[in-house]
């Protein structure tokens, strides 16, 4: 690609984003399995629409297909932001049906669940390249955030020039360390929260309005 062609296309992308603010922004909630993505999506949807997005569970890959909650209006400091929340399956590079056998499932159910999970992850990756306007990246602050999948995904998001808000979830747990996440991804602002308890959601909404408004 020539220098000027690249420059022209990059400027076109930027101006497209600037002048398409009438439509709700599609904000993908991404992150590893069990980081609390659905709990967060439900918290946001309940706070602003009264409805939930989907069931929550401690079993990995409970969310196996992306779920969308449309036209969520968030109002902060007199400014209204309308977003479509897309709750995606936890991204991973491997899915083994045997991991579900430990959760009171027979082989048939475990195989079905793993097949649905792989389809969901593939779909989520495709959408990340084609169909989202911004990303909320949710991490479990009680676990090591510096994994290859996280690093890879955040790199992919950065390469798409998508605005990304990193949330350090599960601050209600004893092992939580928000600083560990700040250290792993210092190029991004990290907002602590407990989606389960609803702690610090005010700041989360302020940042959503700031990043995606």
């Amino acid at each position, binding site marked *: *690609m020539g*220098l000027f062609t*690249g*420059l022209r*296309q*990059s*400027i076109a992308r*930027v101006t497209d984003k600037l002048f398409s603010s009438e439509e709700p922004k599609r904000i993908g909630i991404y992150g590893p399995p069990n980081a609390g993505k659905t709990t967060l999506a439900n918290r946001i949807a309940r706070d602003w629409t009264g409805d939930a997005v989907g069931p929550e569970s401690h079993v990995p890959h409970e969310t196996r297909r992306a779920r969308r909650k449309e036209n969520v209006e968030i109002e902060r400091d007199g400014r209204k932001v309308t977003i479509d929340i897309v709750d995606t399956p936890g*991204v*991973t*590079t*491997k*899915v*083994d*049906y045997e991991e579900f056998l430990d959760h009171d499932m027979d082989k048939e159910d475990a*195989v079905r669940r*793993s*097949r649905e999970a*792989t*389809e969901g*992850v*593939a779909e989520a*990756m*495709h959408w*990340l*390249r084609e169909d989202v306007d911004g990303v909320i990246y949710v991490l479990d602050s009680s676990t090591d955030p510096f994994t*290859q999948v996280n*690093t*890879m995904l955040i*790199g*992919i998001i*950065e*390469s*798409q*020039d998508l605005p990304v808000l990193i949330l350090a979830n599960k601050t209600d747990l004893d092992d939580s360390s928000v600083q560990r996440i700040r250290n792993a991804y210092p*190029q991004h602002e990290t907002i602590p929260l407990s989606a389960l308890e609803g702690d610090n959601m005010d700041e989360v909404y302020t940042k959503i309005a700031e990043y995606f408004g």
Partner: protein
Amino acid sequence: MPEVKNSDDGVQVDLIGGERMAGKTSMEKIRMILDGVRDGNIVILEEGLSPDEESKLIEVTMTEISPDEFSGIEIETYPRSKTSDSSLLGRLMGRESTGSKLTVIGPANQIETLHKDENLISALISHK
């Protein structure tokens, strides 16, 4: 392709040089990687993949997972991918520098640990 091959029950390591990958499309690269990994090999890429290719690698890997046959991949990269050129000018120019990086990819059911620290990737590989 440089390779190390042991006895029948050993593990093959494919080191794929940058030049071999240079002329290939993204899907050709991904096919080469997954064909190797599905054969039980450890694939080492001298120059790694771009973020877009990494995204497609995850997507294609997911479509190929099947019970009792292939459960996915372990992947590790050194050094970690940098935010490349994150300056406004760099982004306007469409620069996409992946930096120098070396990527190790292997079958998830054979790589017991894939550990990385500042200057070392170590993998414990089990036989099938």
